[in-house]
C-alpha cells in the first residue's frame, strides 16, 4: 500500500526554520492538498518528499520504506512542476518516454504506455511536437502524462495551474481531479489557492509558517475551522471577523462589540468565561440583509450602512459598516440595497465561530 508518512519532519535553511515538526499520513490512493500562503513551506515539504531537498530532522516513509536519505531516483515518485519542466529539445513523445527509456523498459511496453497516456490526456495529435509549439494547457497535460507513464508510487504537484489563465485553470483542475480518481495514485498536491484545495482535495492540510494548522476534509475545514487562520483562509469571500467581549445577560451569553451585538446559542457559548475577550467569525453567507433601519430589531441583528455593492450575477457582495467594523454579506440578487442605504443585518447565530485571544477556537 503506497502511503506516505511524515514523522516529526523539520527543515532548516541555516538558522531559519522553514518547516517545524511536520507530521502527516497520506493514505493510499488519496489526493491530499497542501494549502497555505506564499512562503508557508509547501514547496519545501513537497521537495523533501521528492528527495530534492534534504530533511533536517525526522523521517519520511513511502510505502513503509524509509526514504529520508534516498536520492530522488530511488524513491519512485513523479512530480509535475509549476513551470512543467518539459525537456525543450525533445518532442512530446520523447518527453513522455524518456523516464522509461532510462530505466530500460521494453520498447513495446514504452509504446503501450505512451499511447495510453496520450489517449487519456488527448495528446495523440501533439506527440511529434516540441514543448515550445504547445499551449500552456497542453504543456501541462504533457507534464502530467510524463508523470503518469512511469506509474510511480506517488504523484507530486507543485502549483501546477498557476501559470494558466482562469478559465483553463478551472478546466485543468477538473481534469486533474478526474485523472487522479481514475488512476487512484497517492497524490500530494500543493497550492496557495484555497478554491483549488476545496474542490480537489480528499483531505486538506492548511499550513502557515511551516506548521500544520488543521488537517481535514474540505467541508470540515469550512464548517469547523480550529483557529482564526484557517477560518479566514478557507472560504470565499472570506469570513468576517469582529473583536469584542462576551457578556452574561439573563442567563444567556451575548457577544458585544461597538455596533455589533449577537446573542449566542448555548452550544457556542458553552465553556466560555464571562467578559472574555474573543473574536467573532461570521461567514458572509450567514448574514441576511433587510432594508430599512428597524429601531426594534431582534437581538441577533446588526444595524449597518452600505458602502459598496459588488454585483456578481448569482449572489452579490454587500460591504457595510457596522459601527467601526467593515463587514461583508453574500446575498441573493432579488433585493439588493443601494450604497448609502441603512440596513438591518441578521446573523445566523448558530453558525458563528468564536476564537479566543490566542486565535484558537473556544
Amino acid at each position, binding site marked *: 500500500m503506497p502511503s506516505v508518512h511524515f514523522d516529526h519532519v523539520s527543515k532548516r535553511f541555516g538558522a531559519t526554520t522553514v518547516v517545524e515538526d511536520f507530521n502527516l499520513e497520506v493514505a493510499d490512493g488519496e489526493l491530499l492538498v497542501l494549502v497555505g500562503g506564499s512562503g508557508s513551506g509547501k514547496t519545501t515539504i513537497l521537495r523533501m518528499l521528492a528527495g*530534492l531537498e534534504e530533511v533536517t530532522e525526522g523521517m519520511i516513509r513511502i510505502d513503509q520504506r524509509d526514504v529520508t536519505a534516498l*536520492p530522488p531516483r530511488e524513491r519512485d515518485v513523479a512530480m509535475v512542476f*509549476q*513551470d512543467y519542466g518539459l*525537456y*525543450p529539445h525533445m518532442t512530446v513523445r520523447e518527453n513522455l518516454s524518456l523516464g522509461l527509456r*532510462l530505466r530500460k523498459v521494453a520498447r513495446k511496453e514504452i509504446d503501450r504506455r505512451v499511447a495510453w497516456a496520450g489517449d487519456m490526456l488527448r495528446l495523440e495529435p501533439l506527440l511529434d511536437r*516540441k514543448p515550445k509549439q504547445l499551449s500552456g494547457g497542453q504543456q501541462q497535460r504533457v507534464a502530467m502524462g510524463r508523470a503518469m507513464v512511469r506509474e510511480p508510487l506517488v504523484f507530486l504537484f507543485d502549483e501546477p495551474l498557476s501559470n494558466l489563465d482562469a478559465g483553463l485553470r478551472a478546466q485543468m483542475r477538473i481534469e486533474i481531479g478526474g485523472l487522479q480518481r481514475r488512476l487512484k495514485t497517492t497524490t500530494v498536491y500543493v497550492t496557495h489557492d484555497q478554491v483549488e484545495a476545496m474542490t480537489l482535495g480528499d483531505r486538506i492540510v492548511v499550513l502557515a509558517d511551516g506548521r500544520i494548522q488543521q488537517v481535514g476534509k474540505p467541508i470540515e475545514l469550512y464548517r469547523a475551522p480550529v483557529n482564526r487562520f484557517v477560518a479566514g483562509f478557507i472560504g470565499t469571500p472570506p469570513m468576517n471577523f469582529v473583536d469584542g467581549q462576551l457578556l452574561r445577560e439573563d442567563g444567556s451569553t451575548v457577544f458585544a462589540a461597538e455596533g455589533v451585538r449577537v446573542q449566542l446559542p448555548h452550544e457556542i457559548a458553552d465553556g466560555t468565561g464571562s467578559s472574555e475577550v474573543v473574536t467573532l467569525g461570521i461567514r458572509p453567507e450567514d448574514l441576511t440583509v433587510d432594508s430599512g433601519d428597524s429601531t426594534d430589531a431582534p437581538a441577533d441583528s446588526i444595524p449597518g450602512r452600505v458602502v459598496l455593492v459588488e454585483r456578481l450575477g448569482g449572489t452579490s457582495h454587500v460591504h457595510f459598516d457596522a459601527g467601526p467594523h467593515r463587514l461583508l454579506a453574500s446575498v441573493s440578487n432579488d433585493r439588493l440595497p443601494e450604497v448609502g442605504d441603512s440596513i438591518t443585518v441578521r446573523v445566523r447565530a448558530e453558525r458563528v465561530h468564536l476564537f479566543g485571544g490566542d486565535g484558537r477556537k473556544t
Partner: protein
Amino acid sequence: MRAEQRSGSLMAAPYAAFLLVFAAYPIAFALVLVFLQWDLVTTPSFAGLDNVRLLANDGRFWRAVANTFVFLSIHLPLQIATALVLALALNRPLVLRSFWRASFFLPVVISGAVVAILWSNLYATDVGLINRLLVRIGLTPVPWLTDPSTAMPAIAAMVTWKNVGFYVIIYLAGLQYIPRSCQEAIEMEGATAWQRFRHLTLPMLLPQTILVVTLSTINGFQLFIEPYVMTGGGPLRRTYSIVLYLYTNAFSYQKMGYAATIGVALALIIGAVVFIQRRVIGKEETL
C-alpha cells in the same frame, strides 16, 4: 534628415569609418593583389591568373592546408571536451569559484607569443617541466616539438589550453539556461549523472557547442604565432600552417600578390568548412 536619424548616423560614423579602413579596404586591396605581382618596392605589375594557377599546383601550400586540418582534428574535439568538462566543474558550488574561473581565463588575455615561449620551455626535451615530470614517474622523455609525429599535437594541446577559458565562459552561460525544473525532473525520472549529461545537458548546450566549433575553427585556421615561435614550421614542415606559409611568402620572399592569393584561399576554405559544420551539427538546432 530628422534630428534623430542625424544623431544616429553620427554615432555610427566612427564604427563605419573603422570598418572601412580596417576591413573593407584591406579586403578590397587583397582581392586586387591576387591579380598582381608586387615585391613591396617596385611598381606592381599585372599577373592575370598566374598566382591562382601557382597556388593550385603548390605542394607546399597544400601541405600547409593538410597540416592545418591535422591541427583542427586534434584541437576541435579537445577544445570542446575540455571547455565542457571545466564548465561543468565550475558550475557546481565550489570553494574559490571566482578564482578558478579567473585562472582559466587568464591565458586567453596573455599574448600568444608569450604563451608560445612559455610552452617551448615546458615542452623542451631535456629540461622541460613536462618531460621532467614524465621521468619522475618513470617514463621516457618525449621530444615534443622535434618529433614530426608529436609536434602538431603538442601545439594543438597548447592552443587548447590557451583558449579554453573563453569557451568555458560560453558554456557556463549556456548552463544557466537549463531550467532547474528540467534537471530535477530528469533526476526524478531515474537518470544517472551520465544520463543527465547525455540526455539533457549536452543537447541543451547544442547552440553553445555550435558557437564553440565555429569560433575555434575560424581561430584554428589562423594558426600562426605558435609554429612561428616554437617550431618555425618544422620538423619536416609538419607544423607549417597556412598563415605561416602566407607570412613567409609576404615577408621573406616579398611575394605580396601570392601571399594575398593564399589569404583569399584561406578565407574561402574557412567559409566552406564552417558552412559544412553548420549543415552537419546545426540541423538539429530547432530549439
